């Protein structure tokens, strides 16, 4: 896919305009490089940079970083925003292109209802104000993958504004110490995607595929209230989960359905904001976090050595190149109160109706998990963050008698640990929910000890199709069920080690543990230490 557009050359060096990228949104603005066009906003940095306050302590003064994100999410729909050609990821070049998408003369845009609904749903889920009237504009710039020479967007009056997204970050060094933060959403707008360019350096040409041209996008603009890569990564992940829960976008970064641009600047707290640079074309959340932190560090280093930050692509803050889209009337939305009588249901969109039909959002799901299963909030976060893990957990819960806390612990600690260690996704797990449920049942009924359970897990991991029960019987891992025999073992061990018995009676803990260990060994590890301890105490009293 696209080569990431990162500017990380040495200090003091001007960055060339790098146009070599495929599948990126092309932001062509006025190359500045001079001081006169710096953007100095008056808004202050409100929130404490919890995660980076230590890292940014360099030189004499503390540095604060300001990160603003612009997210483009491809709307999950059958057809494009303004035409009836199909939306599909992989297809023969230029096969999903209508006359309108190719910008042939005489064609007109016709708005896709599903895209409007997706925008309203997303706006509601992000606590936005939905504009009952929004307008479409043309944003002009020249690039080969934009055949019309302009992109239809909603610059002046977008469909949704003034929302918020809540997320949790760790505070300080303790992992369990989390704080809830909110980032404000400036606006959400509908706009067209551009086609894709493939650069052929050898023959000095660009190959254009317009399959993606005209696909509906939701642009989500966040206020610049983030302060480091980790916060950005958390926000993006939460937005991904929300979009996926709503079904408005599959939000898969690797497939280009979710694209994030980050605007980054640094300054001393209390002083005006610094010059922004832009980081684009990142196709994974992890890479995004690292790129942002790298850029923050680079800017700090640059400024501390007396250099200055140069901005080569001042993007579309400048209100130039915009005009109203003359072919589209304003988009009018209704609620139940304002719904015109006798209106065709296909032609009106009722915000209240959409609100009532919203699916369960991740934050609600997490709350429900905490309430129902008594797990810690951070567990609910982990369950939702790993793709497929929540489903796995719920499937295990359906089939096992074991307590939710046990299931949570085994899924989050043992299973997830193994998956991470082997770099596997949940969908690739060699252990099925049923298999794990079987194992947990054995534990629950005390048929095996917890150490034996770990061994069974290891065996199940090999994925040979055996059940937990089979493995236990094959490897003789089951706990001794014969209480009499166990008692006999305890007695004989005590007779062999009278000194330890005496020490035990005096209350020496090491003596007890030694005896327990001996009995266990004699029982071929098929006895629970707690049970042994109880027996020893009974026999010695």
């Amino acid at each position: 896919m696209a080569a990431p557009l990162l500017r990380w050359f040495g200090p003091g060096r001007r960055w060339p305009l790098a146009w070599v990228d495929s599948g990126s949104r092309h932001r062509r603005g006025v190359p500045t490089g001079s001081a006169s066009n710096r953007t100095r906003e008056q808004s202050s940095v409100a929130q404490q940079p919890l995660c980076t306050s230590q890292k940014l302590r360099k030189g004499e003064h503390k540095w604060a970083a300001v990160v603003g994100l612009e997210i483009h999410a491809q709307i999950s729909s059958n057809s494009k925003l303004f035409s009836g050609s199909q939306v599909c990821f992989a297809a023969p070049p230029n096969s999903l292109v209508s006359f309108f998408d190719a910008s042939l003369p005489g064609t007109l845009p016709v708005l896709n209802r599903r895209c409007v609904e997706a925008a309203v749903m997303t706006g509601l889920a992000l606590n936005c104000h939905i504009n009952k009237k929004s307008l479409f504009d043309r944003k002009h710039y020249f690039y080969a993958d934009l055949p019309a020479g302009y992109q239809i967007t909603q610059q002046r009056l977008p469909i949704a504004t003034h929302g918020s997204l809540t997320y949790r970050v760790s505070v300080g060094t303790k992992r369990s110490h989390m704080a809830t933060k909110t980032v404000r959403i400036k606006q959400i707008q509908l706009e067209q995607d551009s086609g894709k360019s493939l650069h052929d350096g050898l023959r000095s040409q660009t190959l254009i595929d317009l399959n993606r041209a005209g696909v509906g996008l939701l642009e989500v603009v966040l206020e610049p209230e983030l302060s480091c890569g980790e916060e950005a990564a958390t926000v993006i992940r939460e937005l991904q989960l929300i979009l996926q829960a709503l079904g408005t976008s599959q939000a898969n970064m690797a497939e280009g359905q979710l694209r994030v641009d980050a605007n980054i600047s640094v300054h001393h707290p209390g002083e005006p904001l610094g010059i922004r640079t832009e980081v684009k074309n990142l196709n994974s959340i992890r890479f995004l976090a690292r790129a942002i932190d790298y850029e923050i560090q680079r800017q700090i280093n640059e400024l501390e050595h007396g250099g200055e930050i140069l901005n080569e692509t001042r993007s579309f803050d400048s209100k130039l190149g915009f005009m109203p889209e003359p072919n589209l009337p304003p988009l009018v939305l209704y609620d139940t109160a304002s719904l015109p009588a006798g209106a065709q249901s296909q032609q009106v969109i009722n915000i209240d109706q959409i609100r009532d039909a919203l699916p369960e959002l991740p934050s609600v799901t997490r709350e429900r998990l905490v309430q129902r299963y008594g797990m810690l909030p951070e567990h609910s976060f982990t369950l939702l963050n790993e793709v497929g893990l929540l489903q796995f957990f719920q499937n295990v819960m359906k089939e096992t008698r074991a307590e939710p806390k046990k299931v949570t612990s085994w899924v989050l600690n043992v299973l997830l640990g193994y998956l991470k260690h082997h770099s596997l996704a949940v969908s690739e797990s060699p252990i099925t929910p049923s298999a794990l449920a079987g194992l947990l049942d054995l534990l629950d009924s005390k048929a095996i000890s917890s150490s034996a359970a770990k061994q069974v897990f290891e065996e199940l991991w090999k994925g040979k199709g055996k059940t937990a029960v089979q493995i236990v019987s094959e490897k003789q891992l089951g706990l001794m069920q014969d209480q009499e025999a166990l008692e006999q073992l305890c007695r004989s061990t005590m007779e062999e080690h009278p000194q330890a018995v005496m020490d035990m009676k005096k209350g020496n803990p090491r003596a007890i543990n030694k005896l327990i260990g001996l009995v266990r060994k004699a029982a071929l590890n098929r006895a629970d230490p707690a049970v042994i301890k109880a027996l020893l105490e009974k026999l010695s009293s």
Partner: protein
Amino acid sequence: MWARAVWLTSRGVLGGCQAFATKANPQESGRITAAVIEHLERLALVDFGSREAVARLEKAIAFADRLRAVDTDGVEPMESVLEDRCLYLRSDNVAEGNCAEELLQNSHCVVEEYFVAPPGNISLPKLDEKEPFLHS
């Protein structure tokens, strides 16, 4: 159409206001700096290659400035001549596409069902590299 887009953008640069708001402070007509010309050229890919062209641009702006004579106090700007009409909503069905062959016939240069375009951006010479003819 180009002239109109250029007019709108140059008004934005000169007046420092939104591209389609006309309630700006009265500007002195006339002098357009070389930096503005370069900016416009970059945006609109139009070559103001001569003094005559710049003079023509200045005259066009002065001509359009006469709009200021209209009193628009208390009048809401019109968004579009369609602003009273209903925006038609199409159902999300696939009804078009699959005409790659037809579309590619329009292209002068084609490689394996891709349109072919020149590489990257058309780089314009920087201001100081140009033949000097403008003195601001």
